[in-house]
């Protein structure tokens, strides 16, 4: 067995990629690629695991260096150039519009043997040849996602309130309900011949479009607080795709909102056509998008961000604000006691506590350990509060206090 050790410590991101990816792609079955890095290479592990072609084992896990052993466990069925040509042919088939189950099956089988890098190259070539990103995204990504769906969902990391990812996921549940409702409404609309047949659905569409537009603060928080940070960690492509998705949804939401609120300006057939078109698009694509965020994007974030970064994410999310449908317990605020004179601090804390709903929480930042406050809560609110240190010195202390009873 041949062992190749690649030490990328101290190198620039691009230099690392040039050593890591070709090294792994060239790996023959039975051979080992030994990667030495100065931090936990979580995104890489996540990506390689998803391909199911490698056996991954950590030889060493920190604190100063991580050594990851990568073994290829399955030989590719065809060489790269043949793969490219074959995949191009399949994509051309997919482009035609009506795709047979046989073609889909061929794509599924093929994707199980192709790696992400080859896929990326072929996609780039196709874009150069005039195939739109949208065509690739809707044709290929969907089938790819279907393949990975079960294994991704099974391996998902779950977090509890008030973690920002918990908030995002809870909001997703509400958005999904709106989308289901939208899908049902589009179906009913197909059978309608006039506004009279539609009945309450005109108002319902207004309501749904209101909720979808209100979810914009959810997308804004993802873009500003999660995606930007992922990019700083070198995870660039997944958030870029998610942002492009957001843009597409935003256009349709805007159009649907206008349509729903100005229905009187439209002839029924035009209203029906547009409502079905936007409704079906959003139901299908936004649902898939949510799955990808829950099971890929958030999962990468959970593996890559440090606790300090999560505290920052929480703060930034609080600044941006939440949706009207965000769960009550997400109404978390930060109270920076350092800026408040000591004699006013306890008053401010209990003012905030009194205004809290059950399940809600707030985070205090202090310049010393607020242990006395903890005793006060224990004395006055026993079994009604949860006390969690987010940071314990040396300069500042952060504690999240949750109302549990």
């Amino acid at each position: 067995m041949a062992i190749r050790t690649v030490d990328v410590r101290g190198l620039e991101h691009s230099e690392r990629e040039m050593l890591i990816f070709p090294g792994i792609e060239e790996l023959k079955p039975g051979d080992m690629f030994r990667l030495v890095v100065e931090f936990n290479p979580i995104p890489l592990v996540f990506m390689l695991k998803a391909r199911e072609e490698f056996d991954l084992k950590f030889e060493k896990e920190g604190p100063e260096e991580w050594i990851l052993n990568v073994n290829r466990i399955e030989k590719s069925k065809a060489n790269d150039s043949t793969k490219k040509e074959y995949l191009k042919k399949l994509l051309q088939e997919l482009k035609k519009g009506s795709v047979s189950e046989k073609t889909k099956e061929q794509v599924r089988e093929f994707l199980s043997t192709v790696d992400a890098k080859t896929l990326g190259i072929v996609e780039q070539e196709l874009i150069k040849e005039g195939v739109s990103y949208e065509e690739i995204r809707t044709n290929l990504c969907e089938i790819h996602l279907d393949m990975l769906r079960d294994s991704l969902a099974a391996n998902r990391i779950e977090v509890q309130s008030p973690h920002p990812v918990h908030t995002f996921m809870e909001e997703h549940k509400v958005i999904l309900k709106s989308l289901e409702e939208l899908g049902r409404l589009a179906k009913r609309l197909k059978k309608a011949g006039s506004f009279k047949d539609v009945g309450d659905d005109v108002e319902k569409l207004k309501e749904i479009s209101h909720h979808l537009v209100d979810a914009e603060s959810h997308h804004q928080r993802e873009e500003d607080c999660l995606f930007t940070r992922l990019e700083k960690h070198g995870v660039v492509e997944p958030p870029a795709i998610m942002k492009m998705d957001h843009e597409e949804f935003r256009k349709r939401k805007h159009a649907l909102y206008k349509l729903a609120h100005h229905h009187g300006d439209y002839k029924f057939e035009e209203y029906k056509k547009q409502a079905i078109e936007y409704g079906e698009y959003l139901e299908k694509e936004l649902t898939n998008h949510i799955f990808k965020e829950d099971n890929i994007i958030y999962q990468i974030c959970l593996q890559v961000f440090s606790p300090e970064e999560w505290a920052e994410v929480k703060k930034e999310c609080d600044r941006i604000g939440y949706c009207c449908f965000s769960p009550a317990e997400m109404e978390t605020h930060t109270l920076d006691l350092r800026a408040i004179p000591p004699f006013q601090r306890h008053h401010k804390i209990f003012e905030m506590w009194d205004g809290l709903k059950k399940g809600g929480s707030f985070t205090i930042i202090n310049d010393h350990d607020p242990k006395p406050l903890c005793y006060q809560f224990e004395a006055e609110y026993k079994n009604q509060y949860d006390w969690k240190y987010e940071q314990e010195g040396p300069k500042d202390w952060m504690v999240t206090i949750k109302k549990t009873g």
Partner: protein
Amino acid sequence: MNPIFRDFFNDIKPIKMREQLVGISGAFRTEDDVLEYSFADTVKMAGHVCPTVSGAYVSCQKALEKLYPDEIPVRGDIAVTVYGAPDDGVYGVIGQVFSFVTGAAPNTGFKGLGTRFKRKDLLKFKDERIDPSAMCFEFRRLDNKKAVLVKFYSHKIPYPREKEARIGELIQKVVWDGATGAEKKEFQELWTDKVKTIVLDNKDIDKWMKVESVIQ
């Protein structure tokens, strides 16, 4: 008189500033001429009108009145500190208004001619809360080092709760093009009414704005 903006814009007192740099660069007919920065100019710069832009304009106006009681303020000779992070809430927009009127620029500003007329780094953001319920801004004269602290309690601006609630109901519809013509008009009336309360009427200003001298 401006023909574009609402009539009440004409009644808002402009902020007069001496601008030596414009003078010596030869743009004025008379070198010691005085510039007027009107609320309409501020709205042009910001690209919109809102309670924040209005509050920032009034903050600037009141701070300069206290700093320069008997003279015209000198643009570019004032350092401004905004107590808030530039990307937090509305502090960035407020900073833009201060920069526009006073000439104090962030680190992208004019570096000066030799050692004079430097505008760069005169506008600073400090992520500190001096007063937990107010937005705070310090204006400091560079010539005599005198400074004032403006405390802006935006939540104390007197505006009827039902009108505020109606603005809340209408804003999404207006922004996402779902409002009818009448709703749009209603929103615009309410929105500018609140702006007028702040920037022209200064209604109960003592309750929502304090301008304090900073003791060295």
